[in-house]
């Protein structure tokens, strides 16, 4: 459990400090992984398969999120040749 908390905190730190969009997506991945680890730890603690099913759902959600996020990132890079998320906050339309 402490490991899950530590990984989640690391992902959050990465999300808040890095301005590169790829690193932001990576940090989101780390956080999703940490929450999945917490679910699996709970499943181990009580010996029930429910936590692992939640991890399966997290996995499916992460796959969808990454594909949409990377498509957005490509589209953004096509409009502005940078990956800085500060630039994105100034865009209109």
């Amino acid at each position, binding site marked *: 459990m402490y*490991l899950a908390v*530590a*990984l989640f905190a*690391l*992902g959050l*730190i*990465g999300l808040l*400090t*890095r301005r*590169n969009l*790829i*690193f932001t*997506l*990576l*940090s989101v*991945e*780390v956080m999703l*992984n940490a929450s999945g*680890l917490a679910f*699996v*730890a709970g*499943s*181990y603690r009580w*010996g*029930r*398969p*429910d936590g*692992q*099913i939640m*991890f*399966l*759902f997290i*996995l*499916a*959600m*992460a*796959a*969808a*999120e*990454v*594909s*949409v996020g*990377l*498509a*957005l*990132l*490509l*589209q953004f*890079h*096509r409009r502005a040749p940078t*990956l800085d998320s500060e630039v994105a906050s100034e865009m209109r339309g």
Partner: protein
Amino acid sequence: MLIVFYVASAIAVLATIVAITRNHAVHALLYLIVSLLAIAVIFYVLGAPFLAALELIIYAGAIMVLFLFVVMMLNLGEHATEVETEWLKPGVWAFPSALATVLLGELTYVVVNTSAPSPVMHVITPKEIGMSLFGPYAIGVELASLLLMSGLVGAYHLGRRTSGEEERYGADTDRARVVSGSGIVRVGSDRTSHAA
């Protein structure tokens, strides 16, 4: 088993710390893959061998390859050659290889000691997961399929090239490569959705 857990968790935390502090995106991705491998070992120790396999196949396989595709697509340009030369310096790959070697040592340790009674109180088999997944959680499966479908459509729509772009970027070969390469990403995202 306990020491396996602690070593693997130390590797996971260490690799994640290094991953979010790298400047180079590909290095960060490689460290993140090491971290995912360590988390898969932790899943195995926690009595979830099926999820350990899924973590490797989907996370470390599909999702990281998707990231790698995009990173390589965006970094094409004048950087490419200097990155290649920098890539081969031992300082770059020594630390991740060391971490991965420790994980390999853990694997051999587990395989050698496989006859010892495992302290895991209850290993949850894939059959149990399947019974529960298509029993009480069937509505969740439907929702996940809905989510993957919308993700697929969204990725296709966002990754599609818009009509005005070919004329604007037609002269720039790098840019044209990026635009034509979006087909690869689309195919890759399809594959991820199907695998999940």
